[in-house]
């Protein structure tokens, strides 16, 4: 995903002479080299200084530039929270804060590197938009969308090596709208980010039981397509939310709220990260499993219910 981001940003920079990327000593690696070489004035490594990264982006955008701030998700969101709130959101300045490795992507590096409540925190801010693409193709489209935004955006990316999942999507990527990747009649699965791959596998398993399954990419978490979710809850007898995010303030919590507000009568199952720091290590899937987010646990719970 970070390669897709870097490639796309380079393409945008070729068209938009006012595009800047400000990084806090973390870069989207080799794929950024071309950008850096061709536009050295517009690739700024501000140093290990996330607060200044955001403030400087605000100043650039207030001069009419398109500014992207980029670092590891935890550092992009938590350290400079007040700069994001005051400089970007309160002033409503179009800056994209890119958090790479959202969720548990840095699975071996411990809780300091796990952005497990970033969507909730960023969604709580007025004027902020939140986008979390599920694969490299959505990352490209999301990056273009961010570069056109009139206000601040949090772009939550995975890390590297995520497979393409949306090549056969039934609908185009549209900011603020649900995107059906598959359409069925009985069950709908709502998900976002790289855990979509597991959500699709679970969808296939459910189809083996004879039910048909819709898989929906909720790439825009804010503004959330509440109407689209309400319709999905109406159209299916069973709805499942799978997200790599805390149960507090993420898509699960919001879907429950929408279900309540719309008198939904489908059954609703939500699978999120626990509201807990687990202090465990391993692969990203190992961490998900420790949080109860693995295909077997999810299927078991769905079958028992």
């Amino acid at each position, binding site marked *: 995903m970070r390669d897709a981001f870097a490639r796309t940003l380079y393409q945008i920079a070729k068209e938009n002479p*006012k595009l*800047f990327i400000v990084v806090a000593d973390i870069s989207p690696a080799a794929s950024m080299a071309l950008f850096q070489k061709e536009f050295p004035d517009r690739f700024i490594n501000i140093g290990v*200084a996330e607060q200044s990264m955001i403030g400087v982006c605000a100043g*650039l955008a*207030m001069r009419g530039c398109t500014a992207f701030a980029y670092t590891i998700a935890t550092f992009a969101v938590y350290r400079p929270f007040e700069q994001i709130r005051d*400089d970007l959101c309160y002033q409503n300045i179009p800056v994209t804060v890119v958090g790479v490795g959202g969720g548990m992507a840095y699975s071996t590096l411990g809780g300091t590197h796990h952005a497990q409540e970033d969507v909730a925190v960023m969604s709580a801010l007025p004027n902020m938009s939140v986008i979390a693409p599920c694969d490299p193709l959505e990352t490209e489209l999301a990056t273009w969308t961010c570069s056109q935004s009139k206000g601040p955006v949090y772009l939550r990316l995975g890390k590297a090596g995520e497979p393409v999942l949306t090549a056969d999507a039934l609908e185009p990527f549209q900011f603020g709208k649900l995107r059906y990747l598959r359409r069925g009649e009985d069950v709908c699965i709502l998900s976002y980010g790289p855990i979509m791959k597991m959500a699709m596998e679970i969808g296939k398993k459910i189809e083996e039981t004879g039910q048909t399954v819709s898989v929906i990419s909720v790439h825009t978490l804010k503004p959330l397509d509440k109407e689209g979710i309400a319709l999905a809850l109406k159209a299916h007898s069973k709805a499942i939310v799978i997200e790599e995010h805390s149960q507090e303030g993420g898509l699960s919590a919001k879907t429950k709220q929408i279900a309540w507000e719309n008198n939904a009568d489908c059954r609703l199952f939500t699978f999120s990260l626990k509201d807990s720091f687990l202090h465990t290590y391993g692969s990203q899937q190992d961490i998900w499993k420790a949080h109860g987010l693995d295909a077997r646990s999810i299927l078991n719970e769905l079958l028992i219910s």
Partner: protein
Amino acid sequence: MNGGVEKNRYIQYRKRILQLSQKIGALHIAPAFSCLEIVDAIYFKMMRLNSLKPVKYLDTFILSKGHGAMAQYVVLEHLGILLESDLNNLCQPSGKLGGHPDYGVPGIEASTGSLGHGLPIAIGMALADKVFKIDRMVYVVMSDGEMQEGSVWEAMLIAPNLGLNNLAVFVDSNDFQVLDRISKINPNFYPIKEKVQSFGWEAIEVDGHDSWLIYEKFIKRKGKTPLMVIANTVKGKGVSFMENNPIWNFKSPSKSEYESALKELDGGLLT
């Protein structure tokens, strides 16, 4: 030395702020009195105009010590950028001015109020101007208390790396934070000038209540790097009982205090 015209203006500013304070429960008076001459010097002597009618500036001013808002408001009122009615409706539901500068209000180029935000924003603006070769200065007024924020030191490290000689920061150095003297709470903050210079800035020290002296030092700058002017000031300057007394950081005077403050200002104690 401040000339007669300036001296009169500085007294009028203070009287206006005191007058407005009578309608509001509490106001940051002393922090405004501390930086009035600095703000005035920047607007009247340093910033270049784009147009005279209406008054529009080519250069940018950011009041990073947002709690000094009253100083900026009265200067903007004097310039006609803010209207008398804007100030009369200060902190009222019908008005547009609050206790801290808010982006989008005429003459206000950044929302401040939380300390340590103005300098990084100014760096972004100055950087854009450098890259696109626009001849424009960015002026920032920061407080010495504000310099305890980590973001200020981050930004101080960064600005010289980016070659921003189009950035000038004025520190309102009154040796006070909310509760006490900085020299008591944080004695290792001093000396400031040497610290700033060691970060790659041009740093100069000046009497922060003498606008001509501030200007003189400013135009004599080398101008190769970002500039920090450490302007030594008195918190609450101009009203004896408000000077160097931390309770006047955020407080409106009673009627009798107000009257005696006006009398002092009319007596021309302000030098």
